[in-house]
């Protein structure tokens, strides 16, 4: 009689296959880390020296004018512009995105959900440049018809950014909601909660960490977005006083000016210093998101 399965040993080659696959996976993982470090070193090498000598001036002036004499490297206006755009766009995208996520996971039927998810994914596939185009050609005229002054402005940029972050918020938000055990919903409903009361009092609190992660990743996406904001915000390095003022972001500044800056010159180094700052901001946002994910797992 043959051995019982528990006593049999798998053929020897499976162990080698295992070993090779494990090695490949390890190389892939390590290379990701190596790339990131390389990028970090590259940006740091070009910009860190400049950052060290100019940091005080950069953070105490609103005047960004690197080609004037003497050049001015104040980046408060750029920082404010960045957070202005991001904040404004989150004001739009977070409520809309989370509401859509709730609709998809709780109220839409199966077939409608699948259909809408395809649309959402299509939305995510639209390239940044095309969004910029839409912002300039469609959104801006619409805003002007609605009473905004002539010219590109921060609101325009915020709306485009919001549209670009929505797919991320909707699909991650929906995942977070659907990860809530069905039994919670049943228990709330059986207690006489209406569907909406169930969503508000049980579902959203239960999914809050996942939703937070979705929002934070959305923030990271917004902060890093370049092309679209470069095209639609009006690109003026001034502190905005109303939503109709044009603004300029860190990313757009780098993209617009790197080509004309003299390689190795002061301007060039200043742009790399902006890059370091940007890196730092998105790094912090991702770190927070990561911590939230971790907390969610251990909960």
């Amino acid at each position, binding site marked *: 009689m043959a051995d019982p399965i528990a006593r049999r040993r798998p053929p020897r080659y499976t162990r080698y296959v295992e070993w090779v696959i494990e090695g490949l996976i390890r190389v892939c993982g390590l290379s990701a880390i190596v790339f990131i470090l390389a990028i970090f070193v590259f940006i740091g090498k070009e910009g860190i020296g400049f950052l060290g000598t100019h940091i005080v001036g950069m953070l105490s002036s609103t005047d960004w004018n690197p080609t004037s004499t003497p050049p001015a490297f104040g980046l408060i206006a750029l920082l404010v512009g960045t957070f202005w755009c991001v904040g404004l766009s989150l004001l739009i995208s977070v409520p809309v995105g989370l509401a859509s996520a709730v609709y998809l996971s709780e109220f839409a039927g199966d077939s409608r959900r699948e259909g809408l998810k395809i649309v959402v994914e299509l939305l995510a596939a639209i390239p940044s440049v095309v969004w910029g185009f839409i912002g300039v050609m469609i959104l801006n005229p619409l805003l002007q018809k609605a009473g905004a002054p002539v010219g590109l402005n921060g609101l325009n940029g915020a709306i485009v950014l919001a549209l670009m972050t929505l797919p991320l918020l909707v699909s991650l938000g929906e995942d977070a909601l659907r990860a809530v055990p069905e039994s919670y919903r049943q228990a709330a409903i059986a207690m006489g909660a209406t569907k909406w009361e169930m969503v508000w*009092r049980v579902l959203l609190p239960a999914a809050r960490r996942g939703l937070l992660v979705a929002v934070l990743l959305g923030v990271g996406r917004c902060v890093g977005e370049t092309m679209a904001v470069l095209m639609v915000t009006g690109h003026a390095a001034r502190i905005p006083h109303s939503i109709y003022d044009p603004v300029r972001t860190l990313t757009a500044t780098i993209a617009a000016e790197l080509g004309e800056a003299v390689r190795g010159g002061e301007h060039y180094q200043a742009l790399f210093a902006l890059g370091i700052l940007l890196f730092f901001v998105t790094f912090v946002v991702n770190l927070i998101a990561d911590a939230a994910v971790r907390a969610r797992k251990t909960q």
Partner: protein
Amino acid sequence: MVAEPHVQIEGLTLSYGPRAVVKNVTLSAPRNGILGIVGPAGSGKSSMLTCLNRTIELTPGASYTGTVRLDGQDVRSLEASDLRRRVAMVLPLPVGLPMSVYDNVAFAPRLAGVRRKTELDEIVERCITQAALWDEVKDRLDMLGTRLSGGQQQRLTLARALSTDPEVLCLDEFSIAIDPVTTMRIEAVLTELKERMTIVLVTNLLMQARRIADVTAFMLNGELIEAGPTGDLFVFARDKRTNDYLAGKFG
């Protein structure tokens, strides 16, 4: 003169898709009594319960015909959330909602509009005490409900079900996660509670039905084989299948 039954199930047929799992069942629960429902796994007991509070309507693909009356009134004519406050349900696997022990029990009263802290405190203490859980949790009411042990969570579910002062209390195999001692305590609680409400008790423990049910119904493959006063049914069931099941010959 027999009092009008509190809960009356008439000609209930329930299907998931094309498959009928409850077949033309007519059964009533006497007011202020305990109706025990027994039967082997898959005989449709839990499915039938979901018609009493109409949670069946949330299951995609499920449909039913026939009527369930509460105090003579078709449950379909009631607002679903009102009905669910009047007909409370304790499910077999305990579900602590992801909130504090206190908030778990205060959940339904709050939905019903109770805001005063003193009133909520009173309800919470009364319900948790009735569910034989007070001594174990009174010092940690603000702990997450899901951190309680399985058996404690089950009693928390019971406390929560009692928080609306329901007139009908349905329990689906409540003792599945509870130790024998606590089970006995809750059985004693149920016998007390029936002074104030009607209880429908689905159970796999024949002895449990025998101990506390006033009327027992036996279901098999979606059909109601026989129902009658518990004492009679266990001593001389009319149907051979009932006899065999109660004697432990199959199931």
